[in-house]
Each structure stands twice: as structure tokens, then as C-alpha cells.
């Protein structure tokens, strides 16, 4: 190679030329290949990566629907609030301003710095949520890089704890957690919209590209609750609990013609506007989730079954002497007072356990179970309330004579206050059962479960409980005829009955054409514990104002004009509540003694 051969030179030059051309050709085809790869083969990937750096899909927040009461009063309203958020790495680049930021947001400076460092790989953290817009504006005015605000919604409940259990509450993201807020969450929440925008490096929106999905605001909900009656029930129940030092209680008021729940209150209650940690038991809607043994209020259903069996009429005599009844197996049922020979109506009036047990034992257990079941016991009412309890009605096959007798006067089964109200509303509605509902104006058909004649006879019998010699005179409402039944039961605990009592009252008004059904349940009253003394007065006080608010005509109002047709007539009836002490001998409800 060292001795240059001039003859080889041109060939050498040509080889070089080819080599160079090849190299150039390879290089350019490499470029073309790369270009095709970028522009065609992997276009989607790079397009996506590029878009991801400046295109953003932003959520358009929507407000949650308002909940109105049946008269259009707002019960739950969402209003916008501002939440301050930060891009940690960007804030940390200007670490000198963290002190200023901490002061403005009211956070601890070291804790804030710590939080920013821990989350520095994220692009978004909340610093402070749900500020009122003016406070948020003040923080934004500091113009600290990486700090921005976002609109969110907070729910306010102007009625506070009065309707807290029924409405439930939402979490910090405004989603329903309990009560109707949960049951109707999809209806109320709406769907946040999505818009695509171009953002610059600083996070400013430069251009709206398109609307990906239109925002669908939450729809409003009109519930069946009447705020005024709800408040009445709340006030009277709370007062009764304080007076009797009771531990908890519930009241339900149903509108008989529609099955709508006009009021549902529980004590103790909570403030749904404060998200502080309260005892979870305060948040339970006891009227729907908690069960209670119905005690003597059960007798209305037992006697309905007896009338249906055809073996008993309202005036068929029942001998309750000597005030106790021993069944096979040694179980003895007691009446508090020996009433001797009474009739079926008297069993209701004096709440005789012996009478109820004797009547029950003449029926088949299948028939009794069937009637109870038709009244809605042992099954959820269909109100749709989250966490509703079905109560407990043992199957007829499991009943021995003792169970048959005790269930007849309300022991050995349990019901929710709402179920009890539904059962009494069936008697009030001429034997037609209608599921209670929380929604105003919903399609709510009823179905016949008991003969209208029997329902009418039952109402007549229940009227005797409210006037002497019946014990529940405190449930009276002037000018109106009330029908109802008291109950007192012991709470079952640890396999037996302890010394804690439950006072109940279930009633309807006006008895001749019932409009309202009310159920009062008070747990663990101290001192007096009979339903007639603890629960019945709450019914009387609430209904007195409720009939006025709802413009319900008194019973037999037409008859008053026969004497003086053209003059206004001051209403007087013989059924005036005694001002003196109640005759204590007839307020008992046959509480079982051990």
C-alpha cells in the first residue's frame, strides 16, 4: 500500500465516491425513516404527549339541587365557596413567601412547609377548603406563585337540627352521606361538565378549545316534610324528653290521604351545618332505623284480626278476672288492675293484656301473622330511606301459645316508629295500606288490607282510649275527636327485660275522617313512664297546632249549624281536657311484671 500505484488511483477515487454516496444515501434515508416514524408511525403518542403539556380537560363544577319542603321553603341549599390549592414545587421555588402564605391561610408555617415538601411530586394539593369568597380573594391578592383557588360548593341547612335526621348530610365533596341526601344523591348531584382548554406554563387558561360535556346541574327535590309541623314536633318532643329526663325519642306524622311524611323528628339531634365529630348515635334517624317493642299499641292490630276472624264483635264480652292468665308452661300474664268482665272495646280502652291474650288464643297463629303482616309489620315500609329496618315479626310456625299471647299485646316482636305509623294510617285510611313516602306528590297507590267496616269499628274503639274512663286524656285536642292507643314496653337487653321503659302513643285525628296519624316513642323516661302520661301529651300538643296550620275541619262541624245556621258559633264539645290531675287508675298499659 505504501508504493502508490497511479493505475489504482481512479478506481480508488470511485470507490470513495460510492462510499460517500452510500453514506449520504443511508443518512438521508435514516432521516426519512425517522421522520416517517415520528410523523406517521408514532404520531399518536407524540401528539398525546404534546397535548398533555398544554391541553387540559377541566371540570365545570355544578351545584347540588336545593331541597324544598312541601310549601317551597328551602331546607338544604348549596352555595359556592372557594378552596385554595397549591402546586407544591412551584411554591417551594419561592420558599421565602411561605411565611406570608402561612399567615394568610392561618396554617402553621413549619407544618405547611413540611406538607409542601412531602407532596412536591404532586401538582395539586388543597391548602384550605371551603373559604368564603372574600377570604379566598384576600389570599389570591398576595399573588404568591403556584397558589390558586377553585370553586366548590358547601351545603347549608337553615333549619339545622330540626330536620337533620331526615335530610342527612353531605361530605366535603358535596356527595350525600346519610338520609335523603344519600337516597336521592344521583338526582340532586347532577353531572359536572368537562371543557378542554389550552393552558400556558403558568397555568393560565389561554383558550377554550371545546365543550367536551355540558354541565348538568343537580335537580331540585321537594320533600313531603312540612317545616312548620316538623318544628312543632321537634319542639314538643324535645320538651317532653327534658321533662321526663328521657334518653331518646322519635315522632312521626303521616298525611293519611297521601301517605306523605309531614314530620319526622328524633332526639337527640345534631347540627348538620357543623362537620364536627358528634356521637354517631345522634345522627341515626331512629324513627326509621331503630326498632322498639310496640307494647299495647299492638292491640289495635290484634283486635282487627279478632274482628276479621268473625268470632268477636266490639261488644262481645271478655272475662279478664282475676287480672292474670297462666298459660301452659307456667307463663303468667298480668293486668295492672283487675277489670273483671269487660267487652272487646274495653280490652282496648283499659289496655287489658289478659283480654288481648284470651282473644288471641281463640285465633289461629297463621291468621294473626297474616293480619300483622298485612299491616306492614316485619317488612320495610318502602319509604326508600337508607338503612331502614324491617323490624322483626317471628314466623307463625315459631309461635307457641306463649308467643301467640305475648305478641298479641306487643311483646316478642319489634317495629320501627314509621311502621307503627303506617299500620295506624291503614286503620285511618279505611283499611287501605299506603307506603309512607318522603317525596311530595309522588304516585303512591294504596291497597286494601283490611275490611273498611273493621277499620271504622277500630277507630270507634280507639276513640274510647282518649276520653275517660280511658287513660290517654292528654292526647285530646279541643273540638276534635282523637282516636289512638297508648303503649308502654320494657326494653329488652341481655336476654331479659330490664327496668328501662319505652312510652308509646299512636293516634289519628280527626277520627271521623282521619287526616293525620301521629306516633310518639319516648325511650327511658324517668319517674312516670306510662305512654298515657309521657307520649300521649306530645301527640295532643303537636296536633292541636297542626290541625290549625293545615286547616283541618273539626269533626261533625256540620251538626253545629243546625241550631243557629247563620251565626258564627263558638265551638264547645264535651271532650275537654281535665285541668286537674289525671285519674291514674286507667293510664296503665299492662306493663308485664316479672
Amino acid at each position, binding site marked *: 500500500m505504501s508504493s502508490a500505484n497511479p493505475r489504482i488511483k481512479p478506481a480508488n477515487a470511485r470507490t470513495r465516491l460510492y462510499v460517500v454516496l452510500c453514506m449520504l444515501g443511508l443518512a438521508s434515508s435514516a432521516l426519512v425513516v425517522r421522520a416517517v416514524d415520528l410523523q406517521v408511525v408514532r404520531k399518536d403518542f407524540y401528539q398525546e404527549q404534546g397535548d398533555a403539556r398544554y391541553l387540559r380537560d377541566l371540570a365545570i363544577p355544578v*351545584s347540588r339541587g*336545593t331541597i324544598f319542603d312541601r310549601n317551597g*321553603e*328551602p*331546607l338544604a*341549599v*348549596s*352555595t*359556592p365557596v372557594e378552596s385554595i390549592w397549591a402546586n407544591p414545587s412551584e411554591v417551594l421555588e419561592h420558599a421565602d413567601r411561605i411565611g406570608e402564605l402561612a399567615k394568610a391561610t392561618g396554617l402553621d408555617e413549619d407544618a405547611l412547609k413540611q406538607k409542601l415538601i412531602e407532596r412536591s411530586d404532586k401538582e395539586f394539593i388543597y391548602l384550605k377548603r371551603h373559604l368564603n369568597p372574600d377570604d379566598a380573594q384576600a389570599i389570591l391578592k398576595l399573588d404568591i406563585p403556584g397558589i390558586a383557588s377553585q370553586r366548590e360548593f358547601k351545603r*347549608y341547612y*337553615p*333549619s*339545622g337540627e*330540626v330536620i337533620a335526621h331526615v335530610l342527612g348530610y353531605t361530605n366535603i365533596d358535596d356527595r350525600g352521606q346519610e338520609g335523603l341526601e344519600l337516597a336521592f344523591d344521583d338526582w340532586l348531584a347532577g353531572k359536572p361538565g368537562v371543557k378542554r382548554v389550552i393552558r400556558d406554563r403558568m397555568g393560565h387558561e389561554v*383558550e*377554550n378549545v*371545546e*365543550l367536551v360535556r355540558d*354541565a348538568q346541574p343537580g335537580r331540585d327535590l321537594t320533600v313531603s316534610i312540612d*317545616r*312548620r309541623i316538623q*318544628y312543632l314536633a321537634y*319542639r314538643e318532643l324535645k320538651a317532653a324528653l327534658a321533662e321526663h329526663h328521657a334518653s331518646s325519642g322519635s315522632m312521626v306524622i303521616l298525611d293519611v290521604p297521601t301517605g306523605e311524611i309531614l314530620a319526622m323528628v328524633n332526639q337527640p339531634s345534631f347540627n348538620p351545618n357543623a362537620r364536627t365529630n358528634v356521637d354517631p348515635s345522634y345522627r341515626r334517624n331512629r324513627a326509621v332505623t331503630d326498632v322498639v317493642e310496640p307494647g299495647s299499641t299492638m292491640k289495635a292490630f290484634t283486635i282487627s284480626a279478632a274482628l276479621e276472624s268473625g268470632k268477636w264483635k266490639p261488644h262481645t264480652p271478655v272475662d279478664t278476672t282475676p287480672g292474670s292468665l297462666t298459660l301452659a308452661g307456667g307463663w303468667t300474664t298480668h293486668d295492672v288492675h283487675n277489670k273483671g268482665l269487660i267487652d272487646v272495646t274495653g280490652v282496648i280502652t283499659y289496655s287489658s293484656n289478659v283480654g288481648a291474650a284470651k282473644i288471641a288464643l281463640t285465633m289461629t297463629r297463621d291468621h294473626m301473622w297474616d293480619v300483622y303482616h298485612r299491616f306492614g309489620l316485619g317488612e320495610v315500609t318502602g319509604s326508600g330511606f337508607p338503612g331502614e329496618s324491617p323490624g322483626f315479626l317471628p314466623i307463625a310456625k315459631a309461635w307457641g301459645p306463649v308467643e301467640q299471647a305475648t305478641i298479641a299485646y306487643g311483646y316478642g316482636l319489634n317495629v320501627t316508629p314509621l311502621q307503627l305509623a303506617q299500620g295506624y294510617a291503614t286503620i285511618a285510611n279505611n283499611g287501605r295500606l299506603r307506603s309512607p313516602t318522603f317525596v311530595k306528590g309522588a304516585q303512591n297507590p294504596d291497597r286494601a288490607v283490611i275490611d273498611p267496616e273493621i277499620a271504622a269499628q277500630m277507630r270507634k274503639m280507639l276513640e274510647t282510649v282518649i276520653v275517660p274512663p280511658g287513660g290517654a286524656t292528654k292526647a285530646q285536642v*279541643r*273540638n276534635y275527636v282523637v282516636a289512638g292507643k297508648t303503649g308502654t314496653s320494657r326494653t329488652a337487653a341481655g336476654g331479659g327485660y330490664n327496668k328501662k321503659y319505652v312510652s308509646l302513643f299512636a293516634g289519628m285525628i280527626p277520627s271521623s275522617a282521619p287526616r293525620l296519624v301521629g306516633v310518639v316513642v319516648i325511650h327511658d323516661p324517668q319517674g312516670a313512664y306510662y305512654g298515657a302520661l309521657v307520649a300521649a301529651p306530645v301527640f295532643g300538643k303537636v296536633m292541636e*297546632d297542626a290541625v*290549625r296550620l293545615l286547616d283541618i275541619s*273539626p269533626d261533625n*262541624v256540620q251538626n*253545629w*249549624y243546625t241550631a243557629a*245556621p*247563620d251565626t*258564627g*258559633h*263558638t*265551638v*264547645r264539645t264535651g271532650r*275537654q281536657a281535665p285541668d286537674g290531675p289525671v285519674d291514674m287508675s286507667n293510664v296503665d298499659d299492662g306493663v308485664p311484671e316479672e
Partner: protein
Amino acid sequence: MIAFRNVFLSLLLLATIASAIALVYAIQQSRLAFIELSKLGNERDDLNFEFGRLQLEQATWAENNRIEQIARGRLAMVSPNAAATVVIKR
């Protein structure tokens, strides 16, 4: 024949240019309309929020407990009792 083809081609060219300009114009219009829509949407939302706040305020003032306390306490009002009730026939 050739003249006809030229006229046809230039017509197509003009149509293409016109449609390109129209496209740009339409996009611009759609952006303006979108901005207008967002503005009006925001305005509607703000009015709704204002309405909600006013409803809340009204509900707070009209809270039953507050009304009752003022009526019974400050104004010494009472519910009419049965003797004071007159039923009027219509």
C-alpha cells in the same frame, strides 16, 4: 376544451380558497360564541348562587324558633284558645 378545463380548475381553486377562509371564519365565530356562552353561563350561575344565598338568608330569618321567640317574647302573642275560636260557615 382546454379553456373549459382551465376555467373549471380555477373555479375549484377559488372554491377551495373560499372554503378555507370560511373555515377560519367559522372557527373564529365558534370561539366567540363559546366565550359568550361561558360568560352567560357564569352570569346565570352567579345569579343562581345569589338567589340561593338570599333563600338561605330568608330561611334563616324565618326560622320557626326565632319567629316563635319574637312572637311570644317580644310581642307577647298567644295562640287562640278554643273559647276564642269561632267557626264561620261558608
